[in-house]
């Protein structure tokens, strides 16, 4: 811990107020999302608690506002604050899982390609090239579309969340794989790895203990920047109506619903989830930017 606070990373962190603010915002978003069941004033998933007569309440500070609903309510009488907290939960869940998925896949395949080289490398990188040809949002749409068409609706609804995670995750692995492969190629030829080979360590062990730690910092940077992308991708899919199921509304779903009320004066139904989404992605992106600069001394 002490080592951490003493590190360059921490130092550059304390030097950048923007980074500190975005870290704070990101922390609030994540905490609010993770602790939603504890912190949220209402449970928007509990149908029995919804009061239709409380629908369309403006935020608490408005004229007809109600202190029970700090950010107002939506068309079903759902508390917006709670809905946003739970929505952020879904958005972040999808974002994190998708990034973890693509990171794992990308790192493993990248290590394999870089370390083993030869045919494995050629095949894997060719696949990555092909996939990179396609924009990730399209890959995600197609995966989602195929699964949607292939599975009966009920089954699909139950696994929709995983489908979205898979669709977004699978669309991003080549980025990781390429980076890791590049770093692995460099590391592989370094003396300590050669030495490890000579003393007869198995490739797997070499990769895990020698190569992997050295490629982690670019991976961390890409992962952070990808988190913002994954959250946006999920919101976009949900906005198009092919994302998470409506029973578990994410921020994108909330925006889509709120979109209908944009002209009618009930602005809070769309503005607040929109602001929450932007804040979340912006803070994550700022952190990612900072991390990239901090871990890449050349840029300083």
């Amino acid at each position, binding site marked *: 811990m002490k080592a951490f606070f003493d590190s360059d990373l921490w130092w550059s962190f304390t030097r950048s107020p923007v980074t500190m603010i975005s870290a704070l915002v990101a922390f609030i978003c994540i905490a609010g999302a993770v602790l939603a069941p504890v912190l949220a004033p209402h449970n928007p998933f509990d*149908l029995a608690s919804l009061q*239709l007569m409380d629908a369309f309440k403006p935020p608490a500070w408005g004229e007809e506002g109600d202190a029970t609903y700090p950010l107002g309510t939506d068309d079903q009488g759902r508390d917006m604050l709670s809905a946003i907290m739970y929505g952020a939960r879904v958005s972040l869940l999808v974002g994190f899982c998708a990034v973890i998925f693509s990171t794992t896949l990308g790192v493993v395949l990248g290590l394999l390609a870089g370390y083993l080289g030869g045919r494995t490398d050629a095949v894997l990188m060719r696949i990555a090239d092909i996939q990179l040809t396609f924009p990730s949002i399209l890959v995600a749409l197609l995966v989602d579309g195929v699964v949607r068409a292939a599975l009966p609706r009920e089954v699909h609804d139950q696994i929709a969340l995983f489908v979205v995670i898979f669709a977004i995750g699978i669309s991003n692995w080549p980025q990781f794989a390429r980076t890791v492969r590049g770093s692995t190629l460099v590391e592989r030829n370094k003396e300590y790895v050669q030495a490890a080979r000579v003393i007869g360590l198995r490739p797997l062990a070499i990769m895990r203990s020698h190569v992997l730690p050295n490629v982690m910092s670019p991976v961390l940077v890409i992962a952070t920047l990808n988190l913002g992308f994954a959250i946006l991708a999920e919101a976009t899919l949900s906005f198009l109506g092919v994302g998470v199921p409506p029973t578990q509304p994410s921020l994108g779903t909330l925006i889509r619903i709120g979109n209908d009320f944009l*002209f009618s004066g009930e602005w809070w139904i769309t503005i607040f989830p929109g602001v929450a989404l932007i804040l979340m992605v912006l803070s994550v992106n700022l952190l990612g930017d900072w991390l990239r600069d901090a871990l890449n001394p050349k840029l300083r």
Partner: protein
Amino acid sequence: MIRRLFLVAAALLAVAGAAEARTVRWAASGDPNTMDPHSQNVGTVTMVLQQIYDALIARNQRLGLEPGLALSWSQVEPTRWRFMLRQGVKFHEGEDFTADDVVFSITRSLQPTSNFGIFVDTIDHAEAVDRHTVDIVTKAPDPILPNKLASVYMMSRSWSERHNATRPQNTRQREEMHTVRNTNGTGAYRLQSREPDVRTVLVRNNDWWGWADASNNGNVTEVVFRPIASDATRVAALLSGEIDFVMDPPLQDLNRLRQAGNTRVLEGPEVRTLFIAMDVGRDELLYSDVRGRNPLRDVRVRRALYQAIDIQAIHRTTMRGQSVVTGTLFPEQVNGYVREEDVRLPYDQARARAQLAEAGYPNGFEITLDCSNNRYINDEQICQAIAAMWTRVGVRTRLNAMPLAPFFAKIQRDDSSIYMLGWGVPTLDALYSFQSLLATRNGAQGDGIWNFGRYSNPQMDVLVQRMKTETGEARQAAIRDALRLYREDVPHIPVHHQMIPWAMRSNISMPHMANNQPYFRWTTVN
């Protein structure tokens, strides 16, 4: 001299002004998926085609029957109706309209690929008596045939044969026929161009027979229809003046449209009633946690679900007042409506819980409500509200909202435990609803074809039979009894009659129609 020139110029301008194009740019959420008049009995198709095609019998602004392509009609025998046709009518491509075209059109709409069976189900055949007289022979006496024929459009035999379109397009087999994109009617407007999903342009047919009639006072020379699926975009387009007329403005934006100054809202009821239908046929529900029995077969459970719904909250909040709360099957415009039977079971959560307990479900049960999300006004929101209300009395409801196509496919497979449906009555007669929705599905054409909950009550079947055959007071009595039975047996949970606000630029005036169809023959642009 100069003054005179001015006067001439002004006069010329005035003339030019009178002759200038008066265009109505019209938007709705859905696009017609065919231009074939006998293929799809869907509002989005009819709203365009009824400008282009005429039926034998027309409707007036109050939806009453008027002479159309037929000047007069009479029931010459119990099963034979005779129609005297209007003379000198020409199709848009120049063919004369004759009795032979009527026979052709009736025959065409009787084909199995037609979706218009409900309007022609009683017809045996049509025969031309002379060039301008047609007889239509029914299998059994059909007192409301003229009502039905107001929805059957007349095509040209020679044109159809020339273009290899003598039967309606089979949407199932996905064939592309000439009629998918081309029309040849006798109506007030001609189809000038059509790009599916993008724009459909109609131009005024100055040779239309109806313009002679002073009641057809419209001055619209061109209609440009564009589908805009997104609610927000549609409203934005109207507010910004890119669109003159929106048929389905979102309810939440009505206030804004009323206050906007250059737009206005026409309000009025639609002849369409939303209700919740239930699977009362199966012994075990498909989508529920109750095993071995079907709670919905118990009238107490149906009543409990009924009384759990706070319909006023839905009316005020979800519908923003744009609904007519009802306790019966159809609104008052429909022949057979009885005000005394239009009474709801009161909203009473405690009573709902009590009845559930009585029926043996003190802890409620789980159920899945199927619902469309783009068919009726705020359909998904209504279902969400209802799901919440049911959950509150213990019936834990999962909402399965989906687009029109999969929704209809699902309920038509009898693959639903409980679903919300909206039912319009184009014939404006009670039989249409009872026969389709509540008669036992027995394979006879028309009976119970939309009865996907398999409600079957011999009493109801008898009453439907009487509606089909009897006339006069006896028929009215049968309808009254059926409505009483509907209230007592709770085969459906009525929700409300839909209101259909139309929004338009202030310079447009047109009559609001309860069948949710705009009539440009009555539309003026200033």
